[in-house]
């Protein structure tokens, strides 16, 4: 479908382009104003907020480029308001909610939405969601360790009028402020939400005055049609098939139990289905998300990966994408499931899996391969801190410090080192000086942590490591941890790439940090300190620390792409120079031999070392399935598409097979997951990175899959010991698919 084929009465291309640009700019302006006025570092540094414009029906027209998981669900807030208030929506009204069953991902996400009227008719909705540092409830920051249901978490405000016909409802605000540990912040943020939308309403009215109401409504429809057309076309250009991924959330806030999330993504023609059937039942702990988080989680990967060059119009995406998850599961939880950690829990893990399946699908296209990225750092490895600050004032804050994970590897280059997260691409980290001024800590060091990124032909970006010690704290500091990917590496690699590492937090009790300082020494790693004992902080937990204790963190890097033995040895040497890989990993995993003094690569020794690793792969593994005798050798034929870096699908007459691109080995019919024709070896997660020793090495394993012909690694899976084999790639070649045919 092309624009010139649009219906009669369509807007001329110039008005279309002008108005589309204008509305996009208006939404971004709304976001920037709100961020400037906000007082929360999580808003103005980490950009955990978003802005959206919705159509009169509530469908999402534009989502800002900030935290995609909020605005992807803003249409749900508007629809909840429309459903609840029906005829009682008037000019000058604004509605507020933090209800996870009405458009908030968790209770911290207060959304305010506002209708814009023209006469008596609603012509647009605006919305602004921001994460609040504290919204009440038993645990600071609402990262509710210990909750068993939603009644054990922060209070829920269903959609209410916070502004009634231009009158700010102070009583409503009072309810929220009274419950919060950070009322001043909340008050400032309410003003930011309302102020920015007031400005947007002015802008929109000016636009309607100039272009007429009819044109303004029409453009909204056309924007949706336009984005839909682009996405459908993109889908048509990609091979059909089903790609699967699974992941776990470890620890539910009460017990360290693994909760699997399973995803099968099927792409057929110009349509895509994300099916999470088989995902774990909702948990008796705060890691769940509701359908809001499910949609937000899917969109957080779909928007940046599929809509990388078109406006973020969710209404269009819902026309071409179906999202299925059974009722009562951890990413589609029913009331009264607790969901205080839903954003960084089930919602974020949903994003991780969607990133993986889209990445795998793109890996099966020579044209779209450039858009691949493996899973990014799988969740935020930070803390809520609570207690009193150095001025002895009450303190509750999401401490953002050095926490930065790495980006997923791409098909043509490494992931971004300390690149942050995928769902919130603009998220920044505060300066050390900003944190030390606000909170009673010294950050002892902050560095890029070698070996945290998943190895691969292109490796995942590394995460950071940092160490904090209390200083000038009047009372012990309570730290609340809320992450996952602690027991298992959760940032999976793609087609032969290793996963990023586990994420750790360690408390070095009664360390010698102050003695070191007094001696004029600055430690830059755990080995530089002595301490009474190490406490490993669980993925979720509430822990106190005090003078003399040192809290060490490292964040997972991204997953890798392709076999690490195919990595350019010069890149491995560069990583050594930049402190992004250790000698150990360069030698053991990449098989690269480097002079420790000059860091120059020894090409010959490298070749020998790589051959040695290849031989080990053969001796250590067995075929997944018995090999049928009749598989033909590669002989001519037409390349249909790749499967990742090392396999290609070739059609010869009416038969298509998957062949090793390196040695021509036939893995079997193209529609069967090649790994079923591969060698498999069960490995310890500690083999992917020395840092994985902090995970549950005896419960979580890696399965490595190799080409039986040449030993090239084509897949790495991470799973529990007793998990059945994941069938992850099933191409469908039932039409005369020719890649990039519309290009």
């Amino acid at each position, binding site marked *: 479908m092309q624009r010139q084929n649009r219906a009669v009465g369509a807007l001329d291309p110039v008005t279309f382009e002008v108005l589309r640009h204008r509305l996009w700019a208006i939404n971004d302006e709304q976001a920037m104003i709100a961020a400037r006025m906000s007082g929360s570092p999580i808003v103005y540094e980490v950009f955990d907020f978003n802005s959206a414009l919705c159509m009169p029906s509530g469908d999402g027209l534009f989502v800002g480029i900030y935290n995609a998981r909020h605005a992807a669900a803003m249409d749900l807030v508007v629809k909840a308001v429309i459903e609840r208030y029906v005829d009682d929506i008037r000019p000058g009204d604004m509605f507020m909610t933090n209800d996870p069953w009405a458009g908030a991902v968790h209770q911290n996400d207060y959304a305010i939405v506002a209708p814009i009227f023209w006469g008596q008719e609603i012509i647009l909705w605006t919305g602004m969601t921001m994460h609040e540092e504290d919204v009440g409830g038993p645990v600071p920051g609402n990262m509710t360790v210990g909750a068993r249901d939603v009644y054990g978490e922060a209070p829920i405000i269903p959609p209410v009028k916070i502004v009634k016909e231009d009158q700010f409802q102070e009583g409503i605000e009072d309810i929220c402020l009274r419950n919060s540990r950070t009322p001043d912040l909340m008050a400032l943020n309410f003003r930011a939400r309302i102020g920015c939308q007031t400005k947007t309403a002015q802008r929109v009215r000016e636009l309607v005055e100039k272009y007429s109401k009819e044109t303004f409504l029409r453009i909204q429809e056309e924007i949706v049609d336009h984005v839909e057309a682009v996405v459908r076309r993109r889908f048509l250009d990609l091979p059909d098939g089903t790609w699967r991924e699974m992941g776990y959330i470890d620890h539910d806030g009460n017990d360290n139990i693994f909760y699997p999330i399973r995803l099968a993504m099927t792409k057929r023609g110009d349509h895509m289905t994300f099916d999470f059937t088989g995902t774990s039942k909702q948990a008796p702990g705060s890691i769940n998300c509701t359908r809001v988080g499910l949609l937000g989680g899917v969109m957080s990967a779909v*928007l940046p990966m599929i809509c990388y060059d078109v406006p973020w119009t969710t209404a269009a995406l819902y026309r071409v994408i179906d999202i299925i998850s059974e009722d009562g599961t951890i990413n589609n939880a029913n009331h009264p499931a607790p969901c205080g950690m839903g954003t960084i829990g089930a919602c974020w893990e949903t994003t991780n899996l969607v990133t993986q399946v889209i990445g795998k699908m793109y890996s099966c296209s020579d044209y779209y391969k450039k858009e691949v990225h493996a899973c990014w750092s799988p969740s935020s490895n930070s803390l809520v801190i609570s207690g009193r600050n150095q001025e002895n004032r009450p303190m509750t804050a999401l401490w953002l410090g050095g926490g930065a994970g790495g980006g997923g590897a791409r098909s043509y280059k490494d992931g971004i080192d300390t690149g*942050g997260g995928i769902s919130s691409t603009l998220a920044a980290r*505060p300066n050390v000086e900003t944190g030390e001024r606000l909170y009673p800590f*010294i950050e002892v060091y902050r*560095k890029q942590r070698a070996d945290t990124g998943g190895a691969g032909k292109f490796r995942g970006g590394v995460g950071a490591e940092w160490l904090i010690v209390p200083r000038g704290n009047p009372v012990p500091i309570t730290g609340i941890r809320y992450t996952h990917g602690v027991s298992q590496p959760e940032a999976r690699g793609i087609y032969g790439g290793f996963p990023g590492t586990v994420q750790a937090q360690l408390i070095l009790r009664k360390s010698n940090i102050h003695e070191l300082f007094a001696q004029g020494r*600055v430690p*830059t790693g755990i080995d530089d300190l002595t301490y009474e004992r190490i406490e490993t902080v669980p993925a979720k937990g509430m822990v106190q620390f005090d003078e003399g204790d040192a809290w060490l963190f490292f964040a997972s890097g991204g997953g890798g792409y392709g076999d690490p033995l195919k990595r350019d040895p010069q890149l491995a040497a560069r990583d050594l120079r930049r402190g992004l890989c250790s000698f150990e990993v360069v030698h053991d995993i990449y098989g690269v031999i480097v002079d420790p003094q000059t860091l120059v690569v020894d090409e010959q020794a490298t070749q020998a070392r790589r051959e040695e690793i290849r031989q080990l792969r053969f001796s250590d593994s067995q075929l997944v399935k018995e090999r049928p005798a009749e598989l033909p050798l590669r002989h001519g034929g037409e390349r249909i598409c790749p499967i990742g870096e090392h396999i290609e699908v070739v059609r010869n007459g009416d038969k298509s097979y998957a062949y090793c691109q390196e040695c021509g080995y036939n893995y079997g019919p193209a529609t069967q997951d090649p790994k079923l024709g591969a060698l498999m070896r069960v490995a310890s997660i500690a083999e992917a990175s020395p840092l994985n020793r902090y995970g549950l090495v005896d419960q979580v394993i890696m399965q490595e899959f190799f080409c039986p012909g040449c030993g090239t690694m084509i897949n790495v899976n991470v799973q529990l010991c007793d998990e059945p084999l994941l069938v992850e790639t099933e191409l469908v070649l039932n039409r005369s698919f020719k890649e990039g045919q519309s290009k």
Partner: protein
Amino acid sequence: MYCIAVDIGGTFTDCVVVDEQGETTTSKSLTTSHDPSQGVIEAVRVAAAQLGCSLEALLGNTSHFVHGCTIATNAMIERTGVKTGLITTKGFEDTIPIGRVLLKNAGLSEREIIHISERDKPDPPLIERDYIYGVSERLDYRGEVVVPLNVGEIEAAIDALVLKGIEAIAICFLWGFLNSAHERRARDLIRKRYPQLFITAASELVPVLGEYERSVTTVLNAYLGPKISGYLDNLQNRLAENGYRFPLLIIQTTGGLTTAQDARNRVVMTLDSGPVGGTLGAKFFGELYNEDNVICTDVGGTSFDVSLIHHKELQIETTPVIGQYTFRVPKVLMRSIGAGGGSVAWLDEAGALRVGPRSAHAVPGPACYGHGGDEPTVTDADLLLGYLNPDNFLGGRMRLDRKRAEEVLRSLAEKLRIDLIEVAHAIFKIQNAQMADLIRMCTIERGYDPRDFVLVAYGGAGPTHAIYYGMDVGVKMVRIFADSTVFSAYGMLTSEIMHTFEASSPMRSPFTPANFAHMNSILAELQDRVYRQFADEGIVTGDVQIRRTFAVRFRLQRTELDIEVPDRQLNQQDGELLRQLFDEKYSLVYGPGTGYRKLGIEIMTFKVDGLHRAFSIKVRRGSLNKGDPSEARGSQRAAFFEGKGFVATVVYDGHRLQPGYVLPGPCIIERMGDTVLIPPDFTANVDEFYNIYVVMNGG
């Protein structure tokens, strides 16, 4: 005596010479990137020839030579600075590589940011990791010593760096802006050991909170320092050899002038100093016209730059970005998009027409240049619409090939199933709309209403589009300058000498007696530095005007607003005044009732500007009389206007316009380097300074 300004651009080096009567002589030479001073001298030589004298005679008779350039910017973009080391607090060697994570996106457009698979941190980086050395030392948030400086480690680090061949060294320690003792100690040690090194210490250059931006600024300065200071010395020498007897003056990021001698130590202050000239010129004329608020628009071949004058003041940003690195110097705020004469028109995947941001650049340029360009550009569209004269482009130096323009536009037209002129007009309109959107972002987003502004246009392609984008944003008047293509150089001559010093000293509860005493002492110290700098240049305190600014915010916020405070000792009673100044500013920017006074305010940074007007130029001024414009009238040609189709349109020779002329639209005014387009229902007026203005209200 003459005043001379030279602005080095990507293709041309522009020169403007103004005599005591305000008569201007303009010239251009090709930019000589291997040694830019050569192009500077050449441009001045051409101007001298026009004045009928020798280069030496002109320079010998020049009292002020002002210079702006983008050499520092280009050196950063092309990574041609010197090998540089950084010495920082042990444990924080990765501050720049981590780049607060925002390094992957900073300064990029939204379109670039959402394309995540293409995002990355810059590679090669500003500084390689193995040129960054940490040394044991640590201060806390009050500037108190936690770990004393380890002198032995400094020596070891600097020896290792020198072995690696560095020519410049940056020093930046955590919290060093509150207590500079460690940085000073390190600097002195290094200076003693390796006197040939170019050294920049953060606490001297940029004593403000935020170690990432402070480190970047310090490294940038060291990295660019030897090259830029070498260039400035070279230019100063060449000018002196050819007869110029006074200090070379350099435009800084703030729009103020300083001596080359001062600039050589703070070269970050010269980044992008060329384009600032246009903003200064607009400010100058804004004052002559008594306009408070001006939108400055500069349209070149590849980009569209917008800056603002509000209440007669320049708008300054504090965290500009270069090559994705955020640094920390006050800089005239300028926003750019890829929208110029060379912007390429194309169809996206769904068949929608788009214009830019990619450009055909100067080479091959638009298809109609006939230099091998095969993509349709804005200039091609302008030509087909009859706005440009194919035989009189760049004063007749270039012929435009209409046929080529038709060919490249035809393929678009066929795909869109509209005719050639429709597609050309669509490109024209989309381009104008994008420009208008950028203007809105620079005004509305910052709380300014475009209806309170006059818009000025300059640069080669500005005058053709200005009335349209001006109309779109709803400004009250559009002004188009006479010497539009060298306007940035001209603007530099309107500047004054300016020295700025700032320091962070965060005050969470600012209004205690102790804090007022502290404020006064910080201000006194900054002011003293300003006066000393002027004294070095032989300018006495009495001739210096002082401006003092606080960066203030509500407690908890991150973004500060600047408020100007009176130039006197502050005391307890001033708390209310400061609060009130902040409230007023806050309402202005964010809207009435959006503040939350209960929170209280905090002061983050203190800044003192010292200003001294070293010289003033006169402006050529004619007398307004109701002359008959027909003497400037040339032939007619058909130009396309919406709703009217092709209309026979009068063409005027822009160089024969006299003050007082009234030129009803539609008409076209052809000048040396540009073409002014006046649509139907608008009227161009020539004012006493030979500039054109168009009243927009009711237009």
